[in-house]
């Protein structure tokens, strides 16, 4: 039996595998690993052509940056959710049938409760490692959603969602939305007091939907709340339907990353046309694989040492009880907050009730968030008119309006989230609960407005500091004393690599009315109004954007830093003149803002 196999193996290597490897590695004897693997490899290649796949992907380049790991964290915590979740399904009973608890947790023995809650107690107290898996599952789920949000913010603030990656952005938005639903379904399953309260909240939320709310409520719960079927339904959604959809979306998300190749930050040797980094094998695989085990290990340790969702302390669900300080998992906190600070708007028309006090914050606000997230790439593209491919990431400072918008959105989310703990704030800081609520009602509008302006100014200042560095050089820490007795710090031009990195961002120009109309000049008023709106939006978007330095300015500045120490002020004047000739709006801003900087540098000469 062994004979034919050993005979056929070298045969196969000669015919199939050898021609593949030959051109790259001319007549080199194979090492022990390759020799051992050549048999199976040839077998597989003859059937599924893995050599070509390997040639194309084994050395695929992935750029390195800490922020690129956030998406990996999300992926890995999802895998850990799958692994720990499979363990939990082996004991959990998704049933609302009432039984008397007879397990080993003394304090609840003899109490009537649902099978779901009883089996959760069994998992926590009677199955060795069950509590560990339960807590790992919950921590991993929290981390999954948190990492998705962090990853989304990284992609947003660096402009990684721009063409050609808009579809992948939409897949990501879908993943976050559905990930939150998955998390909610999961924490409703144990049927403890807290999760039952959460379900009752959802019942109220569904009821509030105008026209169809009552029908949806009865269709979701099968009958009047709580009914006996919501947990089995949530269970099958939680373990099969939603994870299946998430897996599909994740696969598409990753496939597009492979197809587009990863984005990279600006830097020497890094352009729109290439991707610089480490090859998939061995370095990247070892790092990413190792990182999976680090996340896995950390979540295991968290599951071992940090208590989460101790359902036995809350007890079984009782529709007439609730604990003070009841709160959902963190990612639902902002919706909870919105529901808390919403004024009591309700319409009573005829014999109908329209509960805007629940529907707007509970249902519409979430819809609004995901709509804005989904539309943003397309809105930005329309405003900037930029339709080319982008593979170089933008530093957040180089797109102040986007960064300001993102920070304003974060601060708004943050205010809602704080409102989700308004009772905790009131009790911990000994302030009036009503005052906290009223202040937050204003803060959700005011704080984003302030944050917008502050962020925008910070971004523009940071851009100016980059320009300053290029024009006046980097500080050396070396102090020169002049014959007159003055002191000045010596500046040196920044390295070519840094100068390249600092100037590689896009040069933005607000849209002009004439420019866009050449082709469609014949069109009527409608097109023009749309175009006028776009020009206005574009002017708003790029307002105060400092102009990019030209190569002449940079060369002159370098010359000036190296040789122009004696007659500093004159040179500055010249330089600014040169800047001015470049003449866009933004640029006048810098020169106007310059005098302060000017004094500082002038006094140092």
């Amino acid at each position, binding site marked *: 039996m062994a004979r034919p196999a050993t005979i056929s193996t070298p045969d196969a290597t000669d015919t199939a595998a050898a021609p593949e490897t030959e051109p790259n590695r001319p007549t080199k004897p194979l090492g022990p690993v390759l020799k051992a693997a050549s048999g199976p490899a040839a077998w597989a290649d003859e059937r599924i052509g893995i050599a070509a796949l390997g040639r194309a992907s084994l050395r695929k380049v992935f750029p390195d940056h800490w922020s690129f790991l956030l998406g990996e964290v999300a992926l890995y915590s999802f895998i850990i959710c799958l692994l720990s979740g499979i363990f939990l399904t082996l004991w959990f009973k998704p049933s609302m049938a009432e039984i008397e608890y007879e397990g080993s947790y003394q304090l609840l023995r003899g109490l009537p409760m649902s099978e779901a809650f009883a089996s959760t107690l069994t998992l926590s107290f009677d199955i060795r490692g069950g509590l560990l898996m339960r807590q790992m599952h919950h921590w991993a789920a929290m981390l999954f959603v948190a990492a998705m949000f962090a990853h989304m913010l990284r992609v947003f603030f660096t402009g990684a969602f721009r063409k050609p990656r808009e579809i992948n952005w939409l897949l990501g938005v879908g993943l976050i939305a559905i990930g939150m639903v998955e998390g909610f379904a999961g924490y409703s399953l144990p049927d403890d007091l807290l999760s039952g309260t959460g379900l009752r909240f959802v019942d109220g939320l569904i009821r509030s939907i105008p026209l169809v709310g009552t*029908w949806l409520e009865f269709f979701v719960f099968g009958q009047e709340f709580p009914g006996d079927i919501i947990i089995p339904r949530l269970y099958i959604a939680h373990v099969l339907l939603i994870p299946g959809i998430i897996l599909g979306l994740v696969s598409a998300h990753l496939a597009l990353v492979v197809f587009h190749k990863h984005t990279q930050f600006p830097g020497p040797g890094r352009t729109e046309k290439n*991707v610089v980094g480490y090859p998939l094998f061995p370095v990247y695989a070892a790092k990413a694989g190792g990182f999976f085990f680090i996340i896995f290990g950390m979540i295991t340790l968290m599951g071992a040492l940090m208590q989460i969702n101790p359902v036995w302390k809350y007890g079984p669900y009782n529709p007439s009880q*609730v604990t003070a300080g009841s709160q959902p998992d963190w990612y639902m906190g902002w919706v909870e907050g919105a529901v808390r600070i919403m004024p009591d708007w309700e319409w009573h028309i005829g014999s109908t009730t329209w509960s805007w006090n629940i529907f707007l914050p509970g249902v519409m606000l979430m819809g609004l968030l995901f709509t804005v997230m989904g539309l943003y790439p397309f809105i930005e593209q329309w405003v900037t008119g930029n339709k080319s491919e982008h593979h170089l990431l933008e530093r957040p400072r180089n797109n102040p309006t986007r960064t300001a918008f993102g920070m304003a959105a974060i601060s708004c989310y943050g205010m809602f989230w704080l409102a989700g703990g308004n009772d905790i704030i009131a009790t911990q800081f000994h302030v009036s609960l009503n005052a906290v609520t009223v202040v937050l009602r204003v803060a959700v509008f005011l704080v984003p407005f302030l944050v917008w302006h502050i962020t925008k100014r910070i971004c523009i200042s940071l851009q100016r500091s980059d320009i300053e560095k290029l024009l006046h050089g980097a500080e050396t820490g070396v102090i020169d004393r002049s014959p007159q007795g003055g002191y000045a710090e010596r500046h040196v031009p920044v390295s070519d690599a840094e100068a390249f990195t600092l100037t590689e961002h896009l040069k933005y120009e607000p849209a002009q009315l004439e420019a866009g109309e050449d082709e469609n000049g014949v069109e009527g008023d409608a097109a023009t109004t749309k175009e006028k709106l776009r020009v206005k939006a574009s002017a708003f978007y790029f307002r105060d954007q400092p102009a990019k330095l030209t190569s002449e300015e940079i060369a002159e500045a370098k010359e000036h830093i190296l040789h122009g120490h004696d007659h500093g002020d004159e040179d500055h004047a010249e330089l600014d003149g040169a800047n001015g000739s470049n003449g866009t709006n933004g640029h006048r801003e810098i020169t106007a803002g310059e005098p302060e900087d000017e004094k500082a540098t002038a006094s140092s000469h």
Partner: protein
Amino acid sequence: MSEHDTHEKSRNVIDDRHPVADPGLEPHQPRLTDIDEHAANRAERQVVLAFALVPVLAIIFVVCYFAVPKTWEVNFGPLHANALHVILGTTLGGAILLIGIGAIHWARTLMGDHEISEERHPAQSSDEARAEALEIVEKVIDESAVSRRKLIIRSLLGGVGIVAVPAVVLLADLGEWPTAARRAETIERTIWAPELKPGTNEVAKYRYIVNDITFKRIKASDLRIGQLVNAEPENLQELHGTEFNQEKAKAALVVVRMDPNSIRVPDSRKDWQVGGILAYSKICTHVGCPISLWEQQTHHLLCPCHQSTFDLGDSGVVVFGPAARSLPQLPIAVDDEGYLYATSDFTVPVGPSFFERDSTKDFRKGDN
């Protein structure tokens, strides 16, 4: 893919985008382990140590799984937990973590760390590919005869569209239909409603108010001024399982005794109370949390979920928060022995609103 051919096209090109010439990839900086054999050997030993500790921890895990009794506790600093749980978690977590630490240390110190560059290609297909694809699509359309026989495709689309209707209709049995009749028996009614004599409107039996834990009837004289008691209807005990939960979710009650001189009782509700003893639904009119925080001095009842605050001294009107409607009040009376009972069901549906709810009958501040 070419590892060494780096972006020659863009390098040294000065344009609007690149006012500074691309200096190209920075030269590789050797690590300590690249130039010092001892450092490399040390790194190797560290990696091997990390990997070698994994089986050790795995063995401890297995031994403890069988050897440590489930009852042992660990109390160390802030950690109070089951000992077996902590041992299993820390050994397993440590083992998994060490695999990761070893792999990353190996990658960072001993694997080649030369950055390489790969060309990108635009996402779009080449012009020829587009043209050819277009031709193929045209051929497909032509061969399918769709363009000449339009009726086929139209009837197909119509047919497929109609198939969606049975699919949706299949879901109609997802739950009961909340028709007006059904609503009147479920969400618009509670088990406080007195039992009627069959076929008449005469009351056969009123529902007594009982303590929600002991299920003992509540005597008016046992309540002190300022006291609040959580209560249920006596007949709740007859129910079990789902029905019990459904009815408890609506029938939960707070009974409160206040000084009659410190509260405002509207004329329409003079007979709803017994000498300052009033009963209200415990279910918040906002999203249905059981309200539980009682402020004795102000007569305010606060919902711990979203902080809606109701004034029990003024027929349960909303004084703060997102709730829009007053807390429904239950008309109560006292029997000859001094026990409290409900004289009727709530006059409006309890709990969160729903679209078909007639909210014109709710008590508003200032009503009399």
